[in-house]
C-alpha cells in the first residue's frame, strides 16, 4: 500500500524552509513518517538550504560573539562521540498514530479522550503552541458520511486509519488531501472500518445543510 495523495510542492517547500506554521507542519511531518517519496523531496530542499547558506555573502557579527559561544561551549558537557545506537525492538503491533502526532495527542487511538460529534462521529482536539489554526483527530464510523461541507480557508486532511472517498477519489493511510474555498465535498468513510484522520483547518467549515449549520456551534467544528 503506497501513498498516492501527496502535499503540494508549496507545502513541502514551506515545511523545509521553516516558514510553515505549527499545525500545518504537524500534518506534513506525520505524512513524512509514512511517505518516503516526500521525505526525499524535503531532504533535497534542505540540501538546497545548505547550498544557499554556502552561497550567502559573509556578514560580520559582533566582536564578542565568538567568545560568548566558546564560553557556553566550555561550560557545556562534551558531546558524545557518536549517537547511542537505539535498540530496535519490533513491537507486536506498530502504533497507528506515527510520531510526531502521537506525542502531540498524548497516546495512540485507543487511549484518546474522544468527544462525541453526533451521528457516530468523534473528535479529539490537539493542543498547539501557535494560535489561529485548529488541529483535530476525526473518527468517522465505517460507511458513514461526513456532512457535506465547503471551507472558509484551507483544510488539510491526513488519513491514518481506514479510508474515505469523495468525488476526487479514495484516500487511505498516509494520503493527504488539500481543500480550500472552492472545494465542496462529501467524504464517506469506507465500509470496512472506521476512518481516523488528522484535520487541520484555519477557518470554520461551512456545512451545506441548514441543520448541520445550526448544530455546528454546539459541536465546536
Amino acid at each position, binding site marked *: 500500500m503506497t501513498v498516492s495523495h501527496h502535499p503540494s*510542492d*508549496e507545502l*513541502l*517547500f*514551506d515545511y523545509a*524552509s*521553516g*516558514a510553515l506554521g*505549527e499545525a500545518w*507542519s504537524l500534518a*506534513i*511531518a*506525520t505524512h*513524512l*513518517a*509514512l*511517505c*518516503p517519496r516526500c*521525505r*526525499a*523531496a524535503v*531532504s*533535497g*530542499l*534542505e*540540501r*538546497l*538550504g*545548505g*547550498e*544557499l*547558506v554556502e*552561497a*550567502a555573502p559573509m556578514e560580520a*557579527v559582533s566582536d564578542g*560573539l565568538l567568545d*560568548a*559561544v566558546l564560553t*557556553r*561551549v566550555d561550560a*557545556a558537557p562534551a*558531546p*558524545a*562521540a*557518536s*549517537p547511542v545506537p*537505539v535498540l*530496535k525492538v519490533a*513491537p507486536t503491533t*506498530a*502504533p497507528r498514530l*506515527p*510520531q*510526531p502526532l*502521537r506525542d*502531540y495527542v498524548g497516546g495512540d487511538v485507543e487511549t484518546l479522550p474522544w468527544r462525541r460529534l453526533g451521528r457516530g462521529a468523534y473528535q479529539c482536539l490537539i493542543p*498547539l*503552541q*501557535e494560535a489561529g489554526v485548529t488541529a483535530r483527530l476525526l473518527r468517522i464510523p465505517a460507511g458513514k458520511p461526513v456532512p457535506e461541507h465547503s471551507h472558509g480557508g484551507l483544510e488539510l486532511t491526513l488519513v491514518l486509519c481506514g479510508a474515505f472517498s469523495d468525488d476526487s477519489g479514495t484516500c487511505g493511510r*498516509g494520503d493527504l488531501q488539500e481543500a480550500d474555498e472552492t472545494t465542496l465535498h462529501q467524504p464517506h468513510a469506507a465500509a470496512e472500518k472506521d476512518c481516523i484522520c488528522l484535520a487541520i483547518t484555519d477557518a470554520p467549515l461551512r456545512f451545506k445543510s441548514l441543520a448541520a449549520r445550526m448544530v455546528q456551534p454546539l459541536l465546536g467544528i
Partner: protein
Amino acid sequence: MAEEIVQETMVNVWRKAGQFDAAKASASTWVFTIARNMRIDMLRKANRPEPDANDPSWVPDPEPQAFDLVSRDQQAAGVHRAMAALPAEQQDVLRLAFFEDLPHGEVAERLGVPLGTVKSRIRLAMKRIRSELGDGQ
C-alpha cells in the same frame, strides 16, 4: 535577534556534533537545519513537528534498485547543479523564502512581482530538484 540565533546555532552545532552523519547530509545542510529550527524556536516560540525514524510506525525507504541507485554525493552535486542553473530571479525567491522566513505574499511584495510568479518559481525550483533526485514526477 539575528546574533542570538547565530549564537544558539553555533552552540547547538557543538552540542549535536555527535549526531552529525556525513553519509546523510553535507555539513552545510546540517547547519542549515539547526539554524532553521533555532529560528522557529526563538522567533515563534513554537515547536517544529518532525518525524522520528526510530518510531515503529515509520515507513522505511524502499530498497534502492540497482538501476536507480543515485549516491548521496551525486544527489548533492545534482542539487548544486540545479541551484546554479536557476536564473538569478529564481534564486532570489528561494533566498528570501529560506532565510527571511517570509510568507509567499511578502516575498512577492519585496521583489515587486505578482504572488503567482513567486509560486510558479517555487514550483519550478522543486521540479528541478526532484529531477536531480531521480524522482520522475
